[in-house]
């Protein structure tokens, strides 16, 4: 079973990388791009076969290590 953990900076945290990407897009002539925020995706291969348990395990990992909840939020998706 695969779990995908998406980690983003929390809304209140300044994201200079996202800002720089946004500026670069404007520079390339992409009009109509509003705020840009960047984050990361971590893919986990899990031995667990029960989706609910897999999700709980991945969330536990995210809280303990994968995300820093002082500055980041995360979302776990389970994929077969």
């Amino acid at each position: 079973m695969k779990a995908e953990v998406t980690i983003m900076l929390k809304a209140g945290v300044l994201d200079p990388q996202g800002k720089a990407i946004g500026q670069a897009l404007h520079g390339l002539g992409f009009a109509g791009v509003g705020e840009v925020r960047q984050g990361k995706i971590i893919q986990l291969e899990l031995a667990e076969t029960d989706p609910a348990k897999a999700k709980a395990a991945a969330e536990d990992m995210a809280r303990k290590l994968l995300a820093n909840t002082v500055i980041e939020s995360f979302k776990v998706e389970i994929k077969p």
Partner: protein
Amino acid sequence: MKAGIVVFPGINRERDMAIALHASTGRAPAMLWHKDADLTGLDLVVIPGGFSYGDYLRCGAMAAQSPAMAAIRAHVARGGYLLGVCNGFQILTEAGLLPGALLRNAGLRFLSMDCHLRVERADTAFTNRYRAGEVFRAPMAHGDGNYFADDATLDRLEGENLVALRYATAEGAVTPDANFNGAARNIAGILSPSLRVMGLMPHPEDLVDPLMGGTDGKPLFDALAALEVA
């Protein structure tokens, strides 16, 4: 005073720290590989700068979860002193031993330059050889030194007088121009409520020898040389 330096894989400023501690204390600190770090009998534990675990995932994240942190927490619990510099500061925040987090520098570039630090509090075991309000110079060398905490935490830090050092001009003015990495409220270093844990981003250990351009960092280590765990 007995000091030990904990070395995680990827830490790379442990020698600089050892030189500075040795110069002030007259004895070489113990170099402790994280896998077998025995902290018994130490007054001071230092986590120096570097790129522990390559700074992969987040700076300091993996070291903060490593088994050695249990011994470091126990050292603090029994009244020992703990200093985290640069990556060491990042590790301490990731481990929750100090509040907040260190974000990517606002300019998105690694910054290696001298900065000026204003001493906000001179009545601690770390800073008592400086005067309150004194400004000293220190090299900085980091890509992620932009201190962040939510407003409530920042207010609490200031309310409880736990900000140790702020980025300032050479004259001591706390201005945006002096705040190279964009840190919240120009914060360069903070203390735990017990005043026994300090974290800071710059490297006073690299300015303790006149030949290297000055001795501005030396009072920090002279202060540490005098401390003893009660």
